[in-house]
């Protein structure tokens, strides 16, 4: 459908607002933040991208994947193994997107063409993640080598080279540059998803989430659309994993552990299913909460699982819509200037 650039509509305003904030972060970042904070921000950008991938496949594709962290991990390991072997980062970055996307395509073929139910999908993706965890942990032996890269089992791979300028393996990026690259990628992925969702493909994906049977009656092969959407989500998660590894110079099998798998779902749940900004903010909020709890002595009896479990239960019982849609409803109600002139009766968030 032709989209008129209607500056008055809520959706367009929201998009412009998000764009301005992101660009402000991009340009001001290295000026305002000292190195320590900047590194933290790079980490946040990486997790925000992971949150975005989950927000897309769950909120818009209706695919509740419990193993999004598997693609994050596969992307990270693909980059690590690639860059150690090639001594150059351009191709490994591409690999970090393509390898998880291809794996998701294969897994998706069996899950969607086999018409597995939501529950089975959740179980299979979780099981795949935990199997990766167990398998990579068991690869400490010297026989587990891919080219020059030893997998190192539960110790993880360390001293992984950071990004270099394409074509110049000997000029690595400085933290400032990595910040620019990561933030630019996040902006590209966010607006890329927005454009995708307005395309024919994206609209069909949303339509399938709305009513799978009707989409089939219209002649759309829902299995194919779901498989591709799932694969796109996996590619984005893989890119997030690549950023994470490059910033850390390190990866270990904990990326496949339960903790991260749980967190990704919480980011989306907290931020709001059916939005893209929500999950990114959700990931930021949760990590800040988590860091803060770590510094509080009264919280010493708390552990990750306890906190995560409690947060999930609170949200699923009390704020099932998530924070972003709830905040938006409140804003529309109490802040008159946020109301678009012609209030269009629309559900879920689009910005």
């Amino acid at each position, binding site marked *: 459908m032709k989209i008129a650039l209607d500056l008055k509509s809520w959706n367009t305003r929201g998009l412009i607002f998000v764009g301005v904030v992101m660009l402000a972060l991009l340009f001001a970042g290295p000026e305002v933040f000292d190195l320590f904070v900047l590194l933290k921000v790079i980490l946040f950008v990486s997790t925000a991208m992971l949150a975005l991938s989950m927000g897309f496949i769950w909120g818009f594709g209706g695919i*509740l994947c*419990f193993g999004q962290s598997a693609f994050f991990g596969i992307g990270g390991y693909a980059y690590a193994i690639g860059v150690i072997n090639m001594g150059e980062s351009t191709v490994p970055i591409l690999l970090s997107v393509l390898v998880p996307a291809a794996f998701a395509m294969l897994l998706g073929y*069996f*899950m969607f*063409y*086999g*018409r*597995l*139910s*939501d*529950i*089975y999908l*959740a*179980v*299979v993706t*979780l*099981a*795949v993640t*935990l*199997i990766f965890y*167990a*398998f990579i942990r*068991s690869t400490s032996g010297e026989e587990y080598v891919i080219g020059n890269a030893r997998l190192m089992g539960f110790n993880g791979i360390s001293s992984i080279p950071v990004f270099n300028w394409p074509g110049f393996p000997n000029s690595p990026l400085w933290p400032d540059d990595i910040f620019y690259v990561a933030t630019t990628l996040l902006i590209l992925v966010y607006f890329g998803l927005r454009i995708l969702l307005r395309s024919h493909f994206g609209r069909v994906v949303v339509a399938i989430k709305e009513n799978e049977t009707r989409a089939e009656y219209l002649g759309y092969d829902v299995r194919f659309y779901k498989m591709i959407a799932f694969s796109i989500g996996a590619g984005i998660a893989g890119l997030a994993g690549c950023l994470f590894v490059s910033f850390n110079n390190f990866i270990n099998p904990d990326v496949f552990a*339960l903790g991260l798998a*749980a967190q990704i*779902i919480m980011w989306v*749940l907290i931020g709001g299913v059916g939005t893209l900004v929500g999950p990114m903010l959700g990931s930021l909020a949760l990590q800040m909460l988590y860091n803060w709890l770590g510094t509080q002595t009264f919280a010493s*009896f*708390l*552990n*990750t*699982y*306890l*906190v*995560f*479990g*409690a*947060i*999930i*239960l609170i949200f*699923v*019982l009390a704020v*099932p819509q998530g924070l972003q849609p709830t905040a938006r409803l409140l804003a529309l109600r109490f802040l008159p200037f946020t109301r678009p002139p012609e209030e269009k009766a629309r559900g879920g968030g689009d910005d």
Partner: protein
Amino acid sequence: MDTVALLIIEVLNGISSLALTCAGLAIIFGMMRVINFAHGEFMMLGGYTTVVATNAGVNIWISMLILSPLVVGIIGIISERLLIRFFYGRLVDTLIATWGLSLLLIGIVTAIFGNYITGVSAPLGNFALGQYQLSIYRLVLIGLAVLLFVGIYFVFTRTRLGLIARGTMQNPDQAAVLGISPPRVYMITFGIGAALTGLAGGLLAPISQIIPTVGFTYVAQAFITVITGGTGAITGTIVASGIFGTVRQLVTYETTPIIGGVVLLIVAVVLLRLLPQGITGKIFRRSL
């Protein structure tokens, strides 16, 4: 010859422990269609109950056969009342809510007992099979699994309670018209499922290591088995346990437990691709 006998016992062990893992879920998910992602944690709690009670001097059989199901059954009923009943009929919400419950239970147990491996030793000692030493308890476990499923089958086909429960699952409105209270039936059935899960956790405690996160090694295989079983939850679970238990045990014997798990998953996904309705989907509604 001894090797063959050993392998047969190993396979039967694999089948029976998988079937035990699935028993409670076959009722809660297979019959009630409630997705309990905290299934593994119910098993973990059953395991901890047996370990704590046994270490406190209670007879291990009493711990396993009475205390574990009792404690977990009560926890199950509390969870049903406080959380799960709000989500009946909403599959995805139940999935997330029980996933939250599962993390919370891990968190509570970690806060109380710490993130350490515990366990109890198996009772009854060993016997010799040629050059191999085998635990008698593992043989007893095979018998107990058979007894348990015979019992479940009997309860749900031959008793008043079982008929009421099945009737309510199939048509709650009609049951309500007949003067049965569906919420009560759901609560009791969920409690029974949880108790069976606790029993399984207790019975498997002596042959496994218990840590707060142990549940996650159970939950995936339990769901995969029950779903593959199909609409006839009990029969299907037995058949699927038979297939998966055999495959996993044989592969594990040849390679490692991790590869055994991978092969189980692959077989399950391929099987579901071929039989989307599950194993008993073909024998629609005729088996339980």
